[in-house]
């Protein structure tokens, strides 16, 4: 533990040591996928035949380097676990110097393993999933770009460099969501994701500017050292700006609306966005900026409220969707809400936020790829009302999906059980509202996930004509099996509070928290709530027949949830329409007032000069008369002056 972390609730300054030995290869972690991107996107058709193999090999190699670095980190003493590698001087303007460097510490190590590990599995899966797509090589190039950008984001040692990765992730997500841009809906969804992310990016860029204005630097080291001296206002502003940034990337309310539409992308992309990259960036940013949030209770509360609202928001949306991917997307929103809530709690929650992020990375990637596997055999049908009884046709997909399902609802022994339980516990110690909300969220999660399970794999066959499901090829099922195993055993990270101790040097010591009951009783309560959710879902969807089309006579809540709780309608009414009116007014002002003034002046000069030139008649005698008149005027004037 660094010596500065002694004070309770104080932020932990980043005190890195210079990279040496195996860590001098750190840059390879980023460089390998970047190389893959360059080769695949610049190489053109020549790389078509082996492009997907290279595209998969690069993140895999990156994973190996990350794994080696991680084990080297394990072997080091606690004080030397923040390794920094400065790569080059990036900006050198007057007194302001920014060097591009990587920091590999307890936090970014976990992220690197998650991103490259789960990312590699998704790449492997994509080989099968995209086998018949003529643009498979381009797809792999963009996937590599996504991984590269995300690695830059989590490895950079300066907020400015984080911003580069941040934007890179935005670009890659835009490209991949719109990968099938020949579909209007996909192109629109990509644009929407891009625009909504820009709103969050405003927060990020303003935060970087504020850091520069206040501390003269935006490096983690500089900001974390300067933070304790910063005024409350600056700390709160920084915290809220970073929260806005996190909301954009992590699809938190109020910037959640892009996530559901992002399902238009190919399913592996959804898995990558939801599990390994993109949405985890916001949580990473908040946890990484713990030294900012330590100084501002307001910002922390803001984070918790956003997390709480989103976790319920996403869960409710997830309950009403008949589109399997959208149901899972709502679930992601909700789970990220859990992480944000945990991150807002402070040092007591950071470790659990990251823990849940890791376990979620496994089970959500697993379920998304499972959903992709189902779609793969049902002619890309996403409507769950057209599934049913797929358990026998897709045994491997079913079993692995079930592992993910048990993990997400928090079945005892599975990874999600440990991670979610810890967050609910921490939330209760923070306040009744947060605790109850998180508990309720767990119940709703159990409900909608059970619904997805029952509608997809159980019940009667409701397959469309021409659908003959058969298990996906091994290249797709093997990643599913690995991820399913991860969902099952991910909880080991909590053995003997390993992850808490591991992250403590980064996030600060976990404060004492008091619970109204013993943790064991709370776990029992959570189990009961989850059980109620499962049973309700079974009563509604397992026992009854599922109609072929969605029932129209439904309660207000269901209708609202089907419309994404009116998130789009809200954006349209509050931002888009007034924005359009504003643009129209501006266009009118531009054409009528500004152009009018400029063009009017020109017309005035032109008109008067065309009138004035009529004087030039070409008649010599009229010129002579003018001259005579002029001369007379001159004479009269002279006389008047002389004689007066």
């Amino acid at each position, binding site marked *: 533990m660094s010596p500065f972390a002694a004070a309770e609730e104080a932020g932990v300054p980043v005190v890195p040591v210079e990279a040496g030995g195996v860590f001098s290869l750190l840059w390879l972690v980023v460089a390998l996928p970047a190389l893959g991107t360059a080769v695949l996107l610049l190489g053109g058709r020549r790389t078509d035949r082996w492009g997907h193999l290279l595209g998969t090999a690069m993140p895999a190699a990156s994973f190996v380097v990350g794994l080696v670095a991680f084990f080297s980190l394990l072997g080091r003493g606690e004080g030397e676990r923040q390794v920094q590698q400065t790569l080059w001087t990036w900006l050198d303007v007057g007194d302001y110097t920014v060097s591009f460097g990587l920091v590999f510490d307890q936090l970014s190590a976990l992220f690197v393993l998650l991103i490259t590990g789960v990312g590699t599995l998704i790449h492997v899966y994509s080989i099968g999933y995209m086998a018949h797509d003529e643009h498979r090589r381009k797809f792999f190039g963009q996937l590599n770009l996504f991984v590269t950008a995300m690695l830059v984001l989590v490895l950079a040692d300066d907020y400015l460099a984080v911003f580069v990765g941040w934007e890179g992730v935005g670009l890659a997500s835009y490209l991949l969501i719109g990968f099938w841009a020949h579909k209007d809906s996909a192109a629109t969804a990509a644009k929407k994701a891009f625009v909504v992310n820009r709103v969050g990016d405003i927060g990020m860029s303003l935060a970087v500017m504020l850091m520069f204005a206040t501390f003269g630097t935006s490096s983690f080291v500089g900001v974390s050292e300067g933070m304790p001296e910063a005024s409350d206002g600056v700390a709160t502003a920084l915290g809220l700006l970073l929260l806005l940034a996190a909301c954009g990337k992590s699809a938190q309310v109020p910037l959640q609306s892009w996530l559901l539409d992002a399902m238009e992308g190919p399913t592996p992309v959804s898995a990558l966005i939801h599990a390994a990259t993109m949405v985890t960036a916001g949580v990473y940013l908040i946890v990484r900026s713990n030294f900012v949030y330590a100084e501002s209770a307001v910002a922390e509360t803001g984070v918790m409220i956003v997390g709480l609202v989103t976790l319920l928001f996403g869960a409710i949306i997830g309950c009403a969707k008949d589109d399997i991917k959208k149901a899972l997307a709502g679930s992601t929103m909700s789970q990220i809400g859990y992480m944000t809530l945990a991150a807002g709690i402070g040092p007591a929650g950071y470790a659990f936020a990251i823990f849940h992020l890791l376990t979620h990375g496994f089970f959500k990637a697993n379920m998304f790829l499972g959903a992709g596997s189902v779609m793969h055999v049902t002619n890309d049908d996403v409507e769950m009302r057209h599934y049913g009884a797929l358990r026998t046709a897709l045994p491997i997909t079913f079993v692995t999906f079930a592992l993910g399902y048990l993990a997400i609802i928090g079945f005892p022994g599975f990874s999600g059980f440990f991670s979610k339980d810890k967050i609910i516990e921490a939330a209760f110690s923070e306040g009744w509202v947060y605790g109850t909300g998180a508990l309720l969220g767990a119940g709703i999660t159990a409900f909608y996930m059970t619904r997805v399970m029952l509608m997809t794999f159980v019940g009667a066959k409701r397959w469309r004509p021409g659908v003959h499901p058969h298990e996906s090829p091994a290249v797709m099922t093997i990643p599913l099996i690995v991820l399913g195993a991860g969902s099952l055993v991910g909880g080991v990270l909590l053995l003997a509070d390993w992850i808490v101790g591991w992250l403590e040097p980064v996030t600060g010591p976990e404060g004492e928290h008091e619970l109204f009951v013993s943790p064991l009783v709370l776990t029992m309560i959570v189990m009961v709530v989850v059980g109620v959710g499962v049973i309700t879902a079974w009563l509604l969807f397992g026992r009854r027949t599922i109609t072929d089309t969605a029932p129209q006579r439904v309660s207000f809540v269901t209708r609202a949830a089907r419309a994404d709780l009116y998130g789009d309608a809200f954006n349209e009414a509050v931002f888009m329409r007034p924005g359009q009116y504003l643009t129209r007014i501006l266009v009118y002002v531009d054409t009528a007032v500004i152009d009018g003034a400029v063009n009017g002046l020109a017309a005035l000069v032109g008109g008067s000069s065309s009138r004035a*030139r009529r*004087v*030039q*008649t*070409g*008649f010599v005698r009229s010129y002579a008369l003018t001259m*005579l008149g002029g001369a007379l005027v001159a004479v009269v004037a002279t006389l008047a002056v002389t004689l007066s």
Partner: protein
Amino acid sequence: MNPDAYITLSALLFSIGAVGVLVRRNAIVVFMCVELMLNACNLALVTFAKQTGDLSGQVAAFFVMVVAAAEVVVGLAIIVSIFRTRRSASVDDASLLKY
């Protein structure tokens, strides 16, 4: 000496010349009227020179004559050239150089 008569004559000649320039269309007549105006000026110049006993007025009159001679050469050439191309010596016909 009393300059009144000379000056009156000069003014009269100048006025005749000016009116001639303004009202006549024939380029030759206009030209002659211009000459009339120049010579009216000359008359005024030498009158004042004589009255004040200063020679510069008479010198100026010579300059005017020289300029007038040169002008006649150029002007007549132009008029002849215009007459040749347009079969007319009216100044109103030569009005192409306009807006």
